[in-house]
């Protein structure tokens, strides 16, 4: 049986399963709900999906659902997008970032200690960004001081997704200030219930609060929870960041593509589909969204065939962010004045809620977080197009 056929069969199987199992009307059910109901829905969906083996296709052979090729993972993502199934945003960091980091860089003891918990639905968050270390992550300052067999943590993290609900945290800290910024970082696994940890949700401009700040006041972490070696945290963090590279954007761009029908239906519903100007803009958006899907697909195929080149991932993310902006901008135009009312939001629905101003504002998550558009442009121009790098040192000349 060729691999083509094997993915075809998988596709049929997943599609049939999703058809039976995606909770009907989950979007409506998640509109303006409180956190508790949302959690319950996420928990239920996680249980279903992992029971079917579709929550962990990227885990290695031997784990439940694991051992899938990238091509098979892609099929599962595509079908999940096509079925407009809920995203597992509460478990995403656990299933991808935490699991992949543990598998790639964790000790055997760490793997045995934490991976079963993840499969059981433990929630993880990521503690990387800080108020003064966003685009420039390497400049982070949260301090981990070794005292005997413990690290003592002091400092602050921000923009941590779902941190207020997390059981554990992937924590990147500074243990040494003497070298260049990327050196002296250390990667720890933190129990969020440890004394001295406090979490403050960030109220977002959309009304949601899926991000939070985490404060550390003399928090203790056992050296057993050190991943890799002290001072080698930057390399471990790269493994974390690469853990979902490509797959997420395949899923998201496919979701965007399938949700084009929402846009078109909204146009038909309010008559704007007869407006020649908005129609042409729709044509433009369709082509760009298809371009985003094709680019994400191509990137994953390159990864599968080990032909990934530096900058490729940046192209995908930058184009996706821009297509999403164009798409939600058209949505705003279509909704017109009516769209400016009803600031209700929908939990866990990412961009495709049909509340266009909300979707538009959420589109900035993709142009700012995870390496802003500007950072991607730096990478593309410097590392792909080989244009000279920005100076590493900079002196203020002239002045205000």
């Amino acid at each position, binding site marked *: 049986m060729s691999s083509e056929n094997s993915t075809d069969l998988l596709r049929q199987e997943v599609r049939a399963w999703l058809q039976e199992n995606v909770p009907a009307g989950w979007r409506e059910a998640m509109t303006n709900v409180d956190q508790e109901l949302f959690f319950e829905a996420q928990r239920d969906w996680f249980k279903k999906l992992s029971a079917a083996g579709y929550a962990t296709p990227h885990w290695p052979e031997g784990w439940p659902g694991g051992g899938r090729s990238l091509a098979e993972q892609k099929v599962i993502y595509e079908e999940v997008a096509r079925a407009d199934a809920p995203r597992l945003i509460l478990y995403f960091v656990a299933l991808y970032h935490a699991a992949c980091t543990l598998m790639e860089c964790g000790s055997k003891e760490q793997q045995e200690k934490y991976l079963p918990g993840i499969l059981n639905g433990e929630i993880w968050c990521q503690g990387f*960004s800080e108020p*003064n*270390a*966003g*685009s*420039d992550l390497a*400049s982070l300052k949260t301090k981990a001081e070794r005292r005997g067999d413990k690290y003592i943590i002091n400092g602050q993290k*921000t*923009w941590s997704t779902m941190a207020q609900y997390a059981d554990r945290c992937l924590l990147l800290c500074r243990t040494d200030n003497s070298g260049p910024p990327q050196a002296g970082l250390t990667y720890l696994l933190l129990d969020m219930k440890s004394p001295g940890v406090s979490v403050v949700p*960030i*109220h*977002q*401009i959309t*009304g949601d609060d899926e991000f939070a700040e985490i404060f550390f006041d003399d928090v203790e972490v056992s050296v057993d929870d050190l991943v890799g070696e002290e001072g080698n945290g930057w390399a471990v963090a790269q493994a974390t960041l690469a853990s979902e590279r490509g797959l997420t954007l395949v899923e998201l761009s496919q979701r965007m593509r399938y949700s084009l029908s929402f846009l078109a239906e909204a146009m038909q519903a309010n008559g704007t589909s007869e*407006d020649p*100007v*908005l129609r042409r803009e729709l044509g433009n958006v369709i082509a760009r969204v298809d371009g985003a899907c094709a680019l994400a697909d191509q990137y994953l195929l390159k990864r599968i065939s080990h032909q990934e080149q530096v900058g490729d991932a940046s192209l995908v993310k930058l184009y996706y962010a821009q297509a999403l902006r164009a798409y939600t901008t058209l949505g*705003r*135009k279509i909704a*017109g*004045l009516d769209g*400016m*009312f*009803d*600031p209700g939001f929908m939990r866990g629905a990412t961009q495709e809620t049909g509340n266009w*101003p909300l979707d538009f*504002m959420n589109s*900035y*998550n993709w*142009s*700012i*977080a995870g390496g*802003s*558009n*500007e950072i991607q*442009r730096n990478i593309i121009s410097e590392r792909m197009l080989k244009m000279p790098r*920005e100076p590493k*040192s*900079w002196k*203020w000349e002239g002045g*205000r």
Partner: protein
Amino acid sequence: MNEFLKELQDSARQVMEGAGTPAKEESTWGQLVELGWLLTAVPEELDGLGLGADALCMLSGELGRNLSEAPFLPAALAIEALVQSGLENKAELLAGLTMGGELATASLAGSDVTASGSGDSLTLNGKLVAVQSADNASQLLVWSNDSQCVALVAADQAAVEAVSRPGWDVTRRLFDVTLNGAAGVALAQGAEAEALVARLLNLRDFAMAADSLGGANALLELTIVHLTDRVQFARPLASFQALKHRCADLKVEIAAAEALLNDSLLKIEGQLGSDDAVFRGKKAKYLASATYSKVAEECLQLSGGIGMASEYPCHLYLKRSMLSEHLGSQGSYEADIAEAFLRQLSI
């Protein structure tokens, strides 16, 4: 802008800065009444300041800068309508609306109202959307959908129902208002009403343009401060050329829209509501509103993560700009401008 207006602007800015951003209705409405801002466009013979649309726009710009919640624009429209009317007791009514703290408000968007009757025994039916601060108003300014009638409607009658309609823009409190056979007093009817509606919408366009540019300026300034203060990669963000150039592009857009607004106000003086003034008003509103949106969208990106947090005011400007775009409808303004130009051409 002349010297007198500049002085007025300086003092207005001081007042508004004291009110904070966003400036809440309760803290600014009383103050602006007290300062006589609502007397701006009232002629001197009616105990007003006798200033023109440029003064009204200057104040709108300051309110836009500070994201003011106060319903200055609809109140000014109602006052303007009253000034233009032949109502017998208009001096008395004006006194209440300008210095008495009474509010007459109006829809900032479309009207779907029909009127029957005449004089002080009008009957009005229909719906108004985007009526600002209706809960605080004693009167509503209403024009019929055929522009044949402009009326004042008392807000406290049973036939008037105002329902709060919260929206993304939290700096303007909007209401849907239903008129179920509400009684009203005509300010103008027939051709006079048509001319008055044109005048009011024209004034609205100019004031909205000014509000937009006030906001755009304030937001760009705020963003440049942020870029200057925030250090990444051991440099202030403001030192990155790609960001500098984008700020320059925003600056030039604002400058052109401002120049167009000021030039238009200069050229239409005294002819508010004429075909030429309406054409100019649409161009000014279109360019200003498009500029505001562009500035707000870019500044959200330039602000990075902090811009996504509700505590930082960037999003308030963005949401106000998005709402303003739809008050008067950008898309149709482009078409209207082309239409008016092609019509001129064929004369």
